[in-house]
């Protein structure tokens, strides 16, 4: 699976594509199957929005036990916030999804393959 991410121009915040809009939570991100041409199409639309976002790119996700997570550690940190300040970044918001994220995070460390977000 794939998701589309970028940083917002005005404040640099990490955002994700959802149905033509940019949303702040990975939990809300639109997901595509690896071979779905809609992903590349969305990437093209995103890249055309040069006064809204910068550094638009697709990220790879992996699925396991009903959870979805970015494949790379870097992308997981972008989706959560810095690990040295648990109250900074997106993780600070709290709530069930973030708790799930943080819980999964510990397991993420050495494997690089984690299930951060429950889908469905």
């Amino acid at each position, binding site marked *: 699976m794939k998701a589309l991410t970028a940083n917002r121009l*005005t*404040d*640099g915040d990490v955002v994700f594509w959802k149905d033509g809009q940019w949303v702040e939570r990975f939990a809300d991100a639109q997901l595509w199957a690896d071979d779905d041409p809609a992903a590349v199409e969305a990437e093209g639309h995103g890249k055309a929005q040069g006064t809204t976002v*910068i550094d638009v790119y697709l990220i790879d996700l992996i699925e396991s036990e009903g959870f979805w997570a970015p494949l790379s550690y870097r992308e997981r940190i972008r989706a959560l916030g*810095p690990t*040295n300040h648990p109250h900074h970044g997106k993780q600070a918001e709290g709530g069930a999804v973030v708790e799930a994220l943080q819980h999964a995070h510990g397991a993420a460390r050495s494997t*690089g393959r984690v299930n951060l977000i429950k889908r469905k």
Partner: protein
Amino acid sequence: MYQYDTVDRQMLADRTAEFRGQVARRLSGELTEDQFKRLRLMNGLYLQLHAYMLRVAVPYGSLNPTQMRKLAWIGRTYDKGYGHFTTRTNLQFHWIRLKDAPDILDHLATVDMHAIQTSGNCIRNVTADPYAGATAEEVDDPRVWAEALRQWSTFHPEFSLLPRKFKFAITAAPKDRTAARVHDIGLVLRRARDGALGFEVIVGGGMGRTPYIGPTIREFLPANRLMSYMEAILRVYNRHGRRDNNYKARIKILVAALGTEEFTRQVEAEWAKIGDSVDLPDTELARIRGAFTRTGFETLPARSEVFEAAKASNPALARFARNNLKPHKKPGYAIVEISLKGIGETPGDATSEQMEAVADLAERYGQDDIRVTHEQNLVLPHVKLDDVAAVWAGLHAAGIATPNINLVSDIIACPGLDYCALANARAIPIAQHIAEKFRDPDRAEKVGELKIKISGCINACGHHHVGHIGILGVDKKGEEFYQLTLGGSGAEDAALGSSLGPALPYEKVADAVDTLVDVYLRERQDGERFLDTFRRTGVTPFKEAVYADAH
């Protein structure tokens, strides 16, 4: 502190006005990101993982309390209430909004601060001895020359699109606290037998992908010829440094490729042609020297009874004094180091409240003088021994009286993958885990001087090559691994560390350091530092202990 005059202030005003216009053109869509990126980078504004990062220059690591308070205020107003002091002695804010950046630069300019040349392929902030003006070791005050270099390098028309970034270090003491031999140019002030001032000129040191200890290309450059000689070096580099490969573009590669002798010949030939027209006249050097606020010292006994009594009744103060106080050139004074390496904290981070506490203490007890060290700590260079107990109490109340300067928990770490877009692995949590292992201050003191330096990628912002123990984060198929090196030094006995063995996974690193320290304690002979023991025994006993489990 160097006092800005009208020229210096108008230079900043012109810069902030220019940048405000550039940001407006970007937000309106007139500039594309490609066009804008190089402009924001000229103002130290990077895009990191979670937000923009603004790198504020702290020229040669020197701050006054007003500036420190402004940094605290900016941290509170525009960031999350803190800032991060770097190995370039700059201050980074990690949660900046692009739309706020012009206002922040305006606020900085009100206290004579800026972000000029804190990124880009230009001459960056100069590192200077944080004990400048306070240590008896120095032959002159290196800040005078650092300020001269700051002015010369600011908007230098010929050297603003170099092959790669360019970093100076300058010290006037034989004990090197600037890592001069791993800078693009390291300058060591010396006095000749006849009293004349001059510089030993070291060129082509560096870390990163291809680390080098820089060779000396001139033993003694007359001090008043500094600018023309630097111009000659930079011109040879600008013309001949590689531009085809970013990883081979630093001056160290040019020096190594040409050989020290040929590089030196080219510099000397260019210097002879340049002549002295770009050198600063003695009157300007005298003006710069005079523009530094004069420090006034009282005549005091070398021993403070007040301080001795306070130490006797307060073991925590005594421990702080053992580790964080350094000898001052004047009797009855001390240099006080403030550790930003609290156990479990992020190395180099200071909260706005902590910055304000340091500003207050500097104002009350420290002649308005604050320094930033390349080891990510702060210094109050001029404190009366009589006042040390009060300074300690203030630091203690602010949570920054950690008594661990130069000890195993005084760890350098870059921001790493927690923030940095270039990083491959995290550095901060590794530092935290190691520090936790040495939470017991008696044990840390027993271990003695041990410099651990951690980088989250090969660019080596965490100076891992010159750590007594160096730790480099690498990515192996999405997992964080760490390569350890031993025996590096960034001081006057500069050396590059050598590899310990195969990379270790994240959760094994702190244990491995623990093991290395145990081996050292077992092997060490009288008075040896970790580094000395390693140099005597070589890597074998350390390697055997760390990888014993693997067999």
